[in-house]
């Protein structure tokens, strides 16, 4: 009854941007990227690749809720 439609998993609705970016106020050189309508397929790969970069201090991703189809990738250089 409350479940969202299955096509919501990959169709980005009008008005929202696919990727948005917020700098972290408390830590220098850190930011969060919110990618809409993506999940572990992309998130894990991006996190793995970020770890291999020498300039990256912190990299991680999470799905805030399995029924909200977006990922947050946090990077700190």
């Amino acid at each position, binding site marked *: 009854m409350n479940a969202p439609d*299955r096509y919501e998993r*990959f169709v980005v609705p009008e008005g929202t*941007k696919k*990727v948005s*970016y917020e700098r972290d106020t408390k830590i220098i050189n850190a930011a969060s990227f919110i990618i809409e309508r*993506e999940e*572990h397929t992309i998130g894990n790969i991006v996190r793995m690749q970020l*770890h291999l970069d020498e300039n990256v201090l912190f990299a991680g991703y999470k799905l805030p809720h399995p029924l909200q189809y977006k990922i947050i990738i946090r990077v700190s250089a």
Partner: protein
Amino acid sequence: MNEKENKGGNNDEPNKKFSIWDLPDVPMGQLPPHLQLQKTRVVCKADAPIHTDNISYSGAYASIGVDNSVHLDLFRDNFKVNVIRLTKEDMEFDMIGIDPALANAFRRILISEVPTMAIEKVLIAYNTSVVQDEVLAHRLGLVPLKADPRLFEYLSANDTPNEKNTIVFKLHATCKRGERRTVYSEELKWLPKGSELIKEAGQADSKPTTYTSFTCSQDMLPEFSEDPISPSEDKIILAKLGSKQEIELEAHAVKGLGKTHAKWSPVATAWYRMLPEVLLLEDVEDEVAEELVRRCPDKVFDIEDIGHGKKRATVARPRDCRLCRECVRGEGWEERVELRRVKDHFIFTVESTGVLPPEVLFTEAVKILEEKCERVISELS
């Protein structure tokens, strides 16, 4: 007292500091063997695996002076793909030198994001069988169709169904009086010219329209004229009919992704496992060797004779090991056998439902991963 004095008591030299790195047998610039084991192998002990995390942080071994970073040219040199088995329906191949995140991404894309055609709308004209309408429609949706999804487009809610986005099938089955029969998927007949059911029109004088508007027949296209579209398996049971029961329906198939519903998944399943490595830590002889060979259900071990009537166990087929851990269960076995997995060697198995051959499926999955990354990158800039 100075610990570094010689036995002869030569006290002339001051206490010389010596570095462990000057010892001849420690290789410079490489990891010591125990750290190399931790980085590249998962050790599967009897209760749980250890060293399962990937140490990919480039500064991980900075204190010893070893550079852990991975560059694209290093990756390109070390990456290998070996195809072990390739049939029309399934494929087993090895990928060496990639990260588990990539392997998992390919598996997830194969299962849910490679598009296929499957029956979505079923227009039922007549159904007097014991199988209810919705159950029959559900079963029809799950039938895999041998149609190349790359030749079709998606059908959205406000599009009209035409020959570029719909495939129409017809099923008409009756059962004679006093008999019983089974309806198989081979009775789904492809209608290349579109729907034959006529819509009830409001005005009586307009031309009768069907549920689809095909401008040209689908079998004019060269791909379909030699190889007509049909279900990929003939003997799938759709319904069973009793005496004088009849089913007449029309089914429309559209393109979709496994993410929306599992009927659109092109693989029966796709999975991967890491290459197993089995080591014998000490010499296993005679009766212990016989017992080891008897214990393993996958016949990983073999006996070899080393003369004087003594036998020894060797590891013959480590690749077949399914990690049942029978060889390390019980007292004292963990000191004799060690089970390991190589962290960057993946054995993929892809079983196709018949939509596309498995190697095509995998190349499509790679293209789709590229597209997804492109989309994210283009949004960033």
